[in-house]
Protein backbone atom coordinates (compact mmCIF):
# COMPACT_ATOMS: atom_id res chain seq x y z
CA UNK A 1 0.00 0.00 0.00
CA UNK A 2 1.41 3.39 -0.94
CA UNK A 3 1.67 6.12 1.65
CA UNK A 4 -0.81 8.13 -0.37
CA UNK A 5 -3.47 5.44 -0.14
CA UNK A 6 -2.77 5.02 3.56
CA UNK A 7 -3.20 8.72 4.07
CA UNK A 8 -6.59 8.64 2.44
CA UNK A 9 -7.77 5.83 4.72
CA UNK A 10 -6.75 7.34 8.04
CA UNK A 11 -9.14 9.77 9.70
CA UNK A 12 -8.17 13.32 8.87
CA UNK A 13 -8.05 15.80 11.68
CA UNK A 14 -4.82 17.76 11.58
CA UNK A 15 -4.23 17.83 7.86
CA UNK A 16 -4.48 21.37 6.56
CA UNK A 17 -4.36 20.30 2.92
CA UNK A 18 -7.83 18.83 3.11
CA UNK A 19 -10.91 21.04 3.32
CA UNK A 20 -13.38 20.38 6.13
CA UNK A 21 -15.81 18.54 3.90
CA UNK A 22 -13.43 15.69 3.16
CA UNK A 23 -14.21 12.89 5.57
CA UNK A 24 -13.31 9.24 5.44
CA UNK A 25 -16.07 7.69 3.32
CA UNK A 26 -18.56 5.51 5.17
CA UNK A 27 -19.50 2.08 3.89
CA UNK A 28 -23.12 1.33 3.01
CA UNK A 29 -23.94 -0.24 6.37
CA UNK A 30 -22.60 2.70 8.37
CA UNK A 31 -24.44 5.06 6.06
CA UNK A 32 -27.67 3.19 6.74
CA UNK A 33 -27.04 3.61 10.46
CA UNK A 34 -26.42 7.34 10.08
CA UNK A 35 -29.56 7.96 8.05
CA UNK A 36 -31.58 5.93 10.54
CA UNK A 37 -30.37 7.93 13.53
CA UNK A 38 -30.77 11.31 11.82
CA UNK A 39 -34.31 10.42 10.71
CA UNK A 40 -35.15 9.27 14.22
CA UNK A 41 -34.03 12.60 15.66
CA UNK A 42 -36.02 14.45 13.00
CA UNK A 43 -39.09 12.33 13.64
CA UNK A 44 -38.99 13.03 17.39
CA UNK A 45 -38.75 16.76 16.73
CA UNK A 46 -41.50 16.93 14.11
CA UNK A 47 -43.86 14.81 16.22
CA UNK A 48 -43.43 17.02 19.26
CA UNK A 49 -43.80 20.53 17.93
CA UNK A 50 -40.50 21.85 16.49
CA UNK A 51 -40.52 24.24 13.55
CA UNK A 52 -39.14 23.19 10.17
CA UNK A 53 -35.94 25.25 10.21
CA UNK A 54 -34.89 23.72 13.52
CA UNK A 55 -35.62 20.17 12.37
CA UNK A 56 -33.50 20.68 9.25
CA UNK A 57 -30.65 22.22 11.20
CA UNK A 58 -30.55 19.56 13.90
CA UNK A 59 -30.88 16.51 11.63
CA UNK A 60 -28.20 17.97 9.39
CA UNK A 61 -25.93 18.43 12.39
CA UNK A 62 -26.57 14.88 13.65
CA UNK A 63 -25.88 13.30 10.25
CA UNK A 64 -22.74 15.22 9.37
CA UNK A 65 -21.29 14.83 12.86
CA UNK A 66 -21.80 11.06 12.59
CA UNK A 67 -19.70 10.99 9.43
CA UNK A 68 -21.89 11.74 6.43
CA UNK A 69 -20.49 14.34 4.03
CA UNK A 70 -23.83 15.94 3.29
CA UNK A 71 -27.50 15.59 4.16
CA UNK A 72 -30.41 16.59 1.93
CA UNK A 73 -33.47 16.96 4.12
CA UNK A 74 -37.09 17.41 3.20
CA UNK A 75 -39.48 18.10 6.06
CA UNK A 76 -43.10 17.67 5.09
CA UNK A 77 -45.95 18.12 7.58
CA UNK A 78 -46.22 14.38 8.21
CA UNK A 79 -42.99 12.84 6.97
CA UNK A 80 -39.24 13.45 6.92
CA UNK A 81 -37.16 12.45 3.89
CA UNK A 82 -33.37 12.35 4.10
CA UNK A 83 -30.63 11.55 1.63
CA UNK A 84 -27.18 11.07 3.14
CA UNK A 85 -24.07 11.29 1.01
CA UNK A 86 -20.61 10.00 1.82
CA UNK A 87 -17.93 9.74 -0.81
CA UNK A 88 -19.49 8.05 -3.84
CA UNK A 89 -22.22 6.43 -1.80
CA UNK A 90 -25.66 7.79 -0.97
CA UNK A 91 -28.85 6.48 0.62
CA UNK A 92 -32.37 7.84 0.91
CA UNK A 93 -35.11 7.02 3.35
CA UNK A 94 -38.60 8.28 4.15
CA UNK A 95 -39.99 8.26 7.66
CA UNK A 96 -43.67 8.79 8.28
CA UNK A 97 -44.40 11.04 11.27
CA UNK A 98 -47.59 11.38 13.28
CA UNK A 99 -47.92 14.52 15.39
CA UNK A 100 -48.12 13.57 19.06
CA UNK A 101 -48.55 16.92 20.75
CA UNK A 102 -46.05 19.45 22.01
CA UNK A 103 -43.37 18.04 24.31
CA UNK A 104 -40.57 20.48 25.09
CA UNK A 105 -38.61 17.96 27.20
CA UNK A 106 -38.10 15.84 24.07
CA UNK A 107 -37.03 18.85 21.98
CA UNK A 108 -34.56 19.77 24.73
CA UNK A 109 -33.20 16.20 24.89
CA UNK A 110 -32.73 15.91 21.11
CA UNK A 111 -30.96 19.27 21.09
CA UNK A 112 -28.60 18.17 23.87
CA UNK A 113 -27.98 14.92 21.97
CA UNK A 114 -27.01 16.76 18.78
CA UNK A 115 -24.53 18.91 20.71
CA UNK A 116 -22.94 15.84 22.24
CA UNK A 117 -22.56 14.14 18.87
CA UNK A 118 -21.01 17.28 17.45
CA UNK A 119 -18.46 17.50 20.26
CA UNK A 120 -17.45 13.94 19.42
CA UNK A 121 -18.54 12.66 22.81
CA UNK A 122 -20.96 10.05 21.47
CA UNK A 123 -20.70 7.46 18.69
CA UNK A 124 -23.53 5.77 16.83
CA UNK A 125 -24.13 3.14 19.51
CA UNK A 126 -24.46 5.72 22.27
CA UNK A 127 -26.72 7.84 20.07
CA UNK A 128 -29.02 4.91 19.39
CA UNK A 129 -29.27 4.18 23.12
CA UNK A 130 -30.05 7.85 23.89
CA UNK A 131 -32.69 8.08 21.14
CA UNK A 132 -34.37 4.98 22.55
CA UNK A 133 -34.43 6.65 25.96
CA UNK A 134 -35.86 9.89 24.55
CA UNK A 135 -38.51 8.04 22.56
CA UNK A 136 -39.67 6.23 25.71
CA UNK A 137 -39.82 9.43 27.79
CA UNK A 138 -43.15 9.87 29.52
CA UNK A 139 -44.81 13.14 30.44
CA UNK A 140 -42.98 14.65 33.39
CA UNK A 141 -46.05 15.86 35.24
CA UNK A 142 -48.99 13.79 36.52
CA UNK A 143 -52.32 14.22 34.74
CA UNK A 144 -54.11 15.93 37.61
CA UNK A 145 -51.30 18.47 37.90
CA UNK A 146 -51.53 19.26 34.19
CA UNK A 147 -55.30 19.71 34.49
CA UNK A 148 -54.88 22.00 37.52
CA UNK A 149 -52.11 24.01 35.82
CA UNK A 150 -54.16 24.45 32.65
CA UNK A 151 -57.20 25.42 34.71
CA UNK A 152 -55.13 28.02 36.55
CA UNK A 153 -53.66 29.30 33.28
CA UNK A 154 -57.10 29.81 31.71
CA UNK A 155 -58.38 31.37 34.94
CA UNK A 156 -55.39 33.71 34.78
CA UNK A 157 -56.43 34.61 31.23
CA UNK A 158 -59.94 35.43 32.44
CA UNK A 159 -58.38 37.97 34.82
CA UNK A 160 -56.23 39.39 32.03
CA UNK A 161 -59.42 39.88 29.99
CA UNK A 162 -60.96 41.84 32.87
CA UNK A 163 -62.93 39.10 34.62
CA UNK A 164 -63.82 39.23 38.33
CA UNK A 165 -63.15 36.66 41.08
CA UNK A 166 -66.25 34.68 40.12
CA UNK A 167 -65.03 34.48 36.53
CA UNK A 168 -61.71 33.18 37.85
CA UNK A 169 -63.39 30.37 39.79
CA UNK A 170 -65.77 29.44 36.96
CA UNK A 171 -62.95 29.40 34.38
CA UNK A 172 -60.69 27.35 36.64
CA UNK A 173 -63.36 24.66 37.03
CA UNK A 174 -64.39 24.73 33.36
CA UNK A 175 -60.89 24.57 31.89
CA UNK A 176 -59.59 22.08 34.47
CA UNK A 177 -62.44 19.62 33.93
CA UNK A 178 -62.27 20.11 30.15
CA UNK A 179 -58.58 19.21 30.32
CA UNK A 180 -59.44 15.97 32.14
CA UNK A 181 -62.00 15.20 29.42
CA UNK A 182 -59.40 15.92 26.75
CA UNK A 183 -56.86 13.59 28.38
CA UNK A 184 -59.46 10.83 28.65
CA UNK A 185 -60.41 11.21 24.95
CA UNK A 186 -56.75 11.30 23.85
CA UNK A 187 -56.02 8.24 25.95
CA UNK A 188 -58.73 6.33 24.07
CA UNK A 189 -57.36 7.46 20.68
CA UNK A 190 -60.39 9.35 19.46
CA UNK A 191 -59.86 11.40 16.32
CA UNK A 192 -57.80 14.35 17.58
CA UNK A 193 -59.80 16.95 15.65
CA UNK A 194 -63.28 15.64 16.47
CA UNK A 195 -62.33 15.22 20.15
CA UNK A 196 -61.92 19.01 20.36
CA UNK A 197 -65.70 19.45 20.02
CA UNK A 198 -66.78 17.54 23.19
CA UNK A 199 -63.90 19.13 25.07
CA UNK A 200 -64.95 22.65 24.10
CA UNK A 201 -68.56 21.65 24.81
CA UNK A 202 -67.62 20.60 28.35
CA UNK A 203 -65.74 23.83 29.00
CA UNK A 204 -68.59 25.85 27.51
CA UNK A 205 -71.27 24.03 29.52
CA UNK A 206 -69.50 24.55 32.84
CA UNK A 207 -68.63 28.18 32.14
CA UNK A 208 -72.10 28.95 30.79
CA UNK A 209 -73.73 27.28 33.82
CA UNK A 210 -71.61 29.47 36.07
CA UNK A 211 -72.78 32.51 34.16
CA UNK A 212 -76.39 31.23 34.16
CA UNK A 213 -76.41 30.86 37.95
CA UNK A 214 -75.01 34.36 38.39
CA UNK A 215 -71.60 33.38 39.73
CA UNK A 216 -69.89 36.15 37.80
CA UNK A 217 -70.71 39.69 36.71
CA UNK A 218 -68.31 39.41 33.77
CA UNK A 219 -69.64 36.58 31.57
CA UNK A 220 -67.59 37.19 28.43
CA UNK A 221 -64.09 36.81 29.96
CA UNK A 222 -65.23 33.62 31.71
CA UNK A 223 -66.71 32.06 28.55
CA UNK A 224 -63.86 33.07 26.26
CA UNK A 225 -61.05 32.05 28.64
CA UNK A 226 -62.56 28.67 29.49
CA UNK A 227 -61.81 27.25 26.00
CA UNK A 228 -58.32 28.76 25.67
CA UNK A 229 -56.71 25.46 26.69
CA UNK A 230 -57.65 24.21 23.23
CA UNK A 231 -56.33 27.16 21.23
CA UNK A 232 -53.64 25.80 18.88
CA UNK A 233 -51.04 28.37 19.93
CA UNK A 234 -48.00 26.31 18.97
CA UNK A 235 -49.51 25.32 15.60
CA UNK A 236 -50.25 28.93 14.77
CA UNK A 237 -46.89 30.32 15.92
CA UNK A 238 -44.99 27.56 14.12
CA UNK A 239 -47.11 28.18 11.02
CA UNK A 240 -46.02 31.80 10.98
CA UNK A 241 -42.39 30.88 11.72
CA UNK A 242 -42.34 28.39 8.84
CA UNK A 243 -43.94 30.89 6.44
CA UNK A 244 -41.43 33.52 7.51
CA UNK A 245 -38.45 31.20 6.95
CA UNK A 246 -39.63 30.18 3.49
CA UNK A 247 -41.14 26.78 4.38
CA UNK A 248 -44.42 27.76 2.80
CA UNK A 249 -45.94 24.28 2.47
CA UNK A 250 -45.43 23.19 6.08
CA UNK A 251 -46.48 26.68 7.20
CA UNK A 252 -49.76 26.49 5.28
CA UNK A 253 -50.52 23.00 6.59
CA UNK A 254 -49.89 24.05 10.17
CA UNK A 255 -52.02 27.15 9.66
CA UNK A 256 -54.91 25.14 8.22
CA UNK A 257 -54.62 22.66 11.11
CA UNK A 258 -54.82 25.58 13.55
CA UNK A 259 -57.86 27.01 11.76
CA UNK A 260 -59.63 23.62 11.79
CA UNK A 261 -59.01 23.28 15.52
CA UNK A 262 -60.44 26.78 16.04
CA UNK A 263 -63.55 25.81 14.04
CA UNK A 264 -64.04 22.75 16.27
CA UNK A 265 -63.66 24.90 19.39
CA UNK A 266 -66.29 27.28 18.09
CA UNK A 267 -68.69 24.41 17.23
CA UNK A 268 -68.35 22.90 20.71
CA UNK A 269 -68.82 26.28 22.35
CA UNK A 270 -71.87 27.18 20.23
CA UNK A 271 -73.45 23.79 21.04
CA UNK A 272 -73.01 24.49 24.75
CA UNK A 273 -74.38 28.02 24.52
CA UNK A 274 -77.28 26.79 22.39
CA UNK A 275 -78.06 23.99 24.86
CA UNK A 276 -78.35 26.50 27.70
CA UNK A 277 -80.11 29.10 25.55
CA UNK A 278 -77.48 31.79 26.11
CA UNK A 279 -77.35 34.42 23.39
CA UNK A 280 -74.92 37.06 22.32
CA UNK A 281 -71.41 35.68 22.93
Amino acid at each position, binding site marked *: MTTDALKRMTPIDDNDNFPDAVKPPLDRDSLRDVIDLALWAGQLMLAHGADTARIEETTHRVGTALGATWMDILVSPNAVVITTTSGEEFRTKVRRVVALGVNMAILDAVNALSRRIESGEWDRVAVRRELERIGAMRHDYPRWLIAAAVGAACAGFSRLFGGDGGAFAVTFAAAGIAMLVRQALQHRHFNALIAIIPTAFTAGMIAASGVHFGMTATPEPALAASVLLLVPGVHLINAMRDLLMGHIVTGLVRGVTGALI*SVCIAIGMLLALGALGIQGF
Partner: protein
Amino acid sequence: MFDTLIAFIIDALWSCVAALGFAVLFNVPRRMLLGCALVGAVGHAARFLVLHAGLPIEAATLFAAVLVGGLSAILSRIYQTPALIFGIVGAIPMVPGVFAYRAMIGLIRVAGADTLLADERALLLSGAAINAVKTGLLLGALAVGIAVPTLLFSRRKPVV
Protein backbone atom coordinates in the same frame (compact mmCIF):
# COMPACT_ATOMS: atom_id res chain seq x y z
CA MET B 1 -49.63 56.57 38.10
CA PHE B 2 -49.83 54.38 41.19
CA ASP B 3 -52.92 52.66 39.78
CA THR B 4 -51.03 51.91 36.59
CA LEU B 5 -48.19 50.37 38.56
CA ILE B 6 -50.59 48.12 40.48
CA ALA B 7 -52.36 47.12 37.25
CA PHE B 8 -48.96 46.45 35.65
CA ILE B 9 -47.88 44.15 38.48
CA ILE B 10 -51.21 42.31 38.46
CA ASP B 11 -50.94 41.87 34.69
CA ALA B 12 -47.44 40.44 35.07
CA LEU B 13 -48.60 38.03 37.80
CA TRP B 14 -51.54 36.63 35.84
CA SER B 15 -49.53 36.23 32.65
CA CYS B 16 -46.91 34.45 34.75
CA VAL B 17 -49.61 31.98 35.84
CA ALA B 18 -50.81 31.55 32.26
CA ALA B 19 -47.30 30.92 30.92
CA LEU B 20 -46.52 28.42 33.69
CA GLY B 21 -49.76 26.52 33.13
CA PHE B 22 -49.02 26.08 29.44
CA ALA B 23 -45.38 25.25 30.19
CA VAL B 24 -46.62 22.32 32.27
CA LEU B 25 -49.01 21.29 29.47
CA PHE B 26 -46.08 21.36 27.00
CA ASN B 27 -43.94 19.28 29.39
CA VAL B 28 -41.18 21.85 29.80
CA PRO B 29 -38.54 20.32 32.11
CA ARG B 30 -38.81 21.46 35.73
CA ARG B 31 -35.46 23.23 35.81
CA MET B 32 -36.66 25.68 33.12
CA LEU B 33 -40.00 26.64 34.69
CA LEU B 34 -38.55 29.73 36.36
CA GLY B 35 -37.32 31.00 32.99
CA CYS B 36 -40.74 30.30 31.48
CA ALA B 37 -42.49 32.28 34.22
CA LEU B 38 -40.09 35.17 33.66
CA VAL B 39 -40.47 35.29 29.88
CA GLY B 40 -44.27 35.00 30.11
CA ALA B 41 -44.57 37.82 32.64
CA VAL B 42 -42.10 40.15 30.89
CA GLY B 43 -43.74 39.73 27.48
CA HIS B 44 -47.32 40.36 28.46
CA ALA B 45 -46.49 43.11 30.96
CA ALA B 46 -44.38 44.91 28.34
CA ARG B 47 -47.34 44.75 25.98
CA PHE B 48 -49.53 46.17 28.75
CA LEU B 49 -47.20 49.16 29.12
CA VAL B 50 -47.03 49.87 25.39
CA LEU B 51 -50.82 49.56 25.09
CA HIS B 52 -51.10 51.94 28.04
CA ALA B 53 -48.91 54.42 26.18
CA GLY B 54 -51.62 54.48 23.49
CA LEU B 55 -50.18 52.30 20.72
CA PRO B 56 -52.42 49.85 18.84
CA ILE B 57 -52.35 46.21 19.98
CA GLU B 58 -50.54 44.99 16.86
CA ALA B 59 -47.58 47.33 17.44
CA ALA B 60 -47.57 46.59 21.16
CA THR B 61 -47.48 42.85 20.44
CA LEU B 62 -44.60 43.24 18.01
CA PHE B 63 -42.64 45.21 20.59
CA ALA B 64 -43.34 42.68 23.35
CA ALA B 65 -42.51 39.76 21.06
CA VAL B 66 -39.12 41.27 20.20
CA LEU B 67 -38.47 41.51 23.93
CA VAL B 68 -39.55 37.87 24.38
CA GLY B 69 -37.28 36.82 21.51
CA GLY B 70 -34.26 38.59 23.01
CA LEU B 71 -34.94 37.22 26.46
CA SER B 72 -35.39 33.69 25.02
CA ALA B 73 -32.01 33.93 23.30
CA ILE B 74 -30.38 34.83 26.63
CA LEU B 75 -32.27 32.13 28.55
CA SER B 76 -31.39 29.52 25.93
CA ARG B 77 -27.71 30.23 26.58
CA ILE B 78 -28.19 29.92 30.34
CA TYR B 79 -30.18 26.69 30.18
CA GLN B 80 -28.38 25.24 27.12
CA THR B 81 -31.64 24.49 25.34
CA PRO B 82 -33.45 25.62 22.16
CA ALA B 83 -34.63 29.24 22.35
CA LEU B 84 -37.86 28.01 20.79
CA ILE B 85 -39.02 26.66 24.18
CA PHE B 86 -38.94 30.08 25.84
CA GLY B 87 -40.11 31.84 22.70
CA ILE B 88 -43.28 29.76 22.48
CA VAL B 89 -44.07 29.81 26.19
CA GLY B 90 -43.44 33.57 26.29
CA ALA B 91 -45.73 34.11 23.32
CA ILE B 92 -48.58 31.97 24.66
CA PRO B 93 -50.11 34.71 26.89
CA MET B 94 -50.22 36.98 23.82
CA VAL B 95 -51.66 34.45 21.35
CA PRO B 96 -54.87 36.06 20.04
CA GLY B 97 -57.07 33.19 21.24
CA VAL B 98 -60.09 35.38 21.87
CA PHE B 99 -59.88 37.06 18.46
CA ALA B 100 -59.56 33.67 16.73
CA TYR B 101 -62.47 32.36 18.78
CA ARG B 102 -64.69 35.36 17.95
CA ALA B 103 -63.80 35.11 14.26
CA MET B 104 -64.78 31.44 14.15
CA ILE B 105 -67.97 31.94 16.18
CA GLY B 106 -68.91 34.78 13.84
CA LEU B 107 -68.23 32.67 10.74
CA ILE B 108 -70.31 29.75 12.00
CA ARG B 109 -73.16 32.10 12.93
CA VAL B 110 -73.24 33.16 9.27
CA ALA B 111 -74.92 29.79 8.66
CA GLY B 112 -77.98 31.03 10.52
CA ALA B 113 -77.86 34.52 9.02
CA ASP B 114 -80.70 33.92 6.53
CA THR B 115 -83.18 34.75 9.28
CA LEU B 116 -81.46 38.06 10.09
CA LEU B 117 -82.04 41.54 8.78
CA ALA B 118 -79.56 42.93 6.24
CA ASP B 119 -77.97 45.23 8.82
CA GLU B 120 -77.42 42.41 11.28
CA ARG B 121 -75.88 40.24 8.57
CA ALA B 122 -73.44 42.97 7.64
CA LEU B 123 -72.53 43.40 11.29
CA LEU B 124 -71.97 39.67 11.74
CA LEU B 125 -69.74 39.35 8.69
CA SER B 126 -67.70 42.48 9.32
CA GLY B 127 -67.24 41.44 12.95
CA ALA B 128 -65.90 38.04 11.89
CA ALA B 129 -63.63 39.63 9.28
CA ILE B 130 -62.21 42.19 11.73
CA ASN B 131 -61.42 39.48 14.25
CA ALA B 132 -59.87 37.21 11.60
CA VAL B 133 -57.60 39.99 10.32
CA LYS B 134 -56.59 40.93 13.87
CA THR B 135 -55.76 37.27 14.60
CA GLY B 136 -53.54 37.06 11.53
CA LEU B 137 -51.73 40.33 12.24
CA LEU B 138 -51.13 39.50 15.89
CA LEU B 139 -49.79 36.05 15.04
CA GLY B 140 -47.52 37.58 12.42
CA ALA B 141 -46.26 40.14 14.94
CA LEU B 142 -45.57 37.36 17.46
CA ALA B 143 -43.71 35.13 15.00
CA VAL B 144 -41.62 37.94 13.50
CA GLY B 145 -40.90 39.42 16.93
CA ILE B 146 -39.70 36.14 18.42
CA ALA B 147 -37.55 35.48 15.36
CA VAL B 148 -35.85 38.89 15.46
CA PRO B 149 -32.66 37.68 17.23
CA THR B 150 -32.31 34.86 14.65
CA LEU B 151 -33.05 37.19 11.75
CA LEU B 152 -30.51 39.76 12.95
CA PHE B 153 -27.67 37.80 14.49
CA SER B 154 -27.51 34.30 13.03
CA ARG B 155 -27.88 34.91 9.30
CA ARG B 156 -26.13 31.77 8.19
CA LYS B 157 -26.40 30.26 4.77
CA PRO B 158 -29.20 27.69 4.86
CA VAL B 159 -27.69 24.31 5.76
CA VAL B 160 -29.85 22.11 3.59
